[in-house]
């Protein structure tokens, strides 16, 4: 078990908070929330296709994409008050990007809650050329930056919100094992 690998708790509201903001990178929130309560908000990412109505802004906001949501989150947290609890649910890169945005705004780890959900998708940091590779689902990834075949390690950097990728064939060039699906 790698110690740098974060452990996540199942989602639960922290009732000591005064306001609760739940953000997810999934189109269907993986939890049920009572959005009739005036102190709970939900933000998600929803593909808006013709015919599908964007929900009105308010307690529930749907964003076109994660970067848009994160830009809005930065703006929102700069105006928020102590008492807020932030919950991030979704892929590991998403929840840790959210965590880092929260930290920069002054939230402590006691005010943020991360829950991993959805199929394992990792963001991988190429240790050789510093390229970030998104949405990796297999144990071996090809770096688009330097062309290396990378072994996706369990070593996770919270600052980069990414897993380390190290050349798999450094010893014997070309000796690349068959990729497997990531288990977690």
């Amino acid at each position, binding site marked *: 078990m790698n110690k740098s690998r974060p452990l996540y708790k199942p989602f639960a509201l922290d009732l*000591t*908070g*005064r*306001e609760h903001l739940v953000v997810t990178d999934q189109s269907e929130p993986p939890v049920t929330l009572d959005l009739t309560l005036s102190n709970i908000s939900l933000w998600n990412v929803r593909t808006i296709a013709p015919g599908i109505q964007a929900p009105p802004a308010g307690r529930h906001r749907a964003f076109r994409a994660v970067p848009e949501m994160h830009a809005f989150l930065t703006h929102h*947290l*700069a105006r*928020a*008050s*102590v*008492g*807020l*609890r932030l919950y991030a649910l979704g892929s590991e890169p998403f929840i840790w990007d959210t965590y880092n945005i929260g930290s920069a*705004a*002054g*939230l*402590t780890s*006691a*005010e943020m809650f991360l829950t991993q959900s959805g199929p394992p998708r990792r963001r991988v940091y190429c240790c050789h050329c510093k390229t970030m590779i998104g949405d990796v689902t297999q144990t071996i990834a090809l770096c688009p930056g330097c062309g290396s075949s990378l072994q996706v390690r369990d070593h996770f950097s919270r600052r980069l919100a990414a897993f380390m990728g190290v050349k798999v064939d450094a010893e014997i060039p070309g000796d690349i094992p068959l990729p497997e699906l990531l288990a977690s």
Partner: protein
Amino acid sequence: MKLKITDIIALSPSIRQFTLADAAGALLPTASAGAHILLRIPGPERVWRNAYSLVSSPEDRHAYKIIVRRVEHSRGGSVWLHDHAAIGEVVEAETPQNLFPIPRTAQKHLLLSAGIGITPMLAYLQVLRKPFELHHCGKLEDAEAFARLLPATPNVVLHTSRNTLDLEQLLAHQRLGTHLSVCGPESFMDVVLQTAQNLGWPGAKVHKESFGGATGGAPFVARLRRSNLTINVGSDQSLLEAIEDAGLAPPSLCRGGACGVCETALLEGIPDHHDHYLSETQRACNNTIMPCVSRAKTPELVLDI
């Protein structure tokens, strides 16, 4: 260490500032903002051990400054400092300790104080590098004394009546990176802490100073099993002080029931807990006690020391 009083300034009829330097002229240990010093003040029957926040600049190693209010019916100490201490007098002291350091990760400091609780804030103001807001509650005559020591800026507000400080309003509208630091009488701190908690402030962003909270109470008897001693704890001294007067030197740090250093195993008797350290469950077990602040509900306590 031995400290010599080198200056006394009357800030008001009941508040004085004392300057203390090393008796032999040596440099003093540095003390970060928020630190306090324990003075051993000679009393008629016993030595008082009183904690005072340092108000001097943390960089100043030539002198410590403390501000003392004369409390008429106090447990002593302050009366001696006001009525007997003179320039040139030497007092015994312990190296300063800091149980109220500046929260380093704060993006803004919200400082709330009442009464003499302003003293650690005076040290803070000299070194804070982040934006801050100070609200102080106190009596009108004290406010004038403190006003001279405070910057006349809009972020420093003196409230001479608690009604002018709308705590709820203030605590409900603080940016996420704000940390709250509070110092003052127990009753004041309780209200502030409770309000903060109700508004969802996490414990990690709330900091309180609590030293010297011992207020005395009904006298009782303590038996020190291992030392084979029986001592009387007077109404104007703490159990810890009584143990010290018996010649023992149990560990202690904050002397205000906050740090847990003085925790002592209790063998018999029911304690009257006044500390902020033990959990509810630990309290209910009646098998441990913080002698710096806690007392007895039974006429006698038996301690494992």
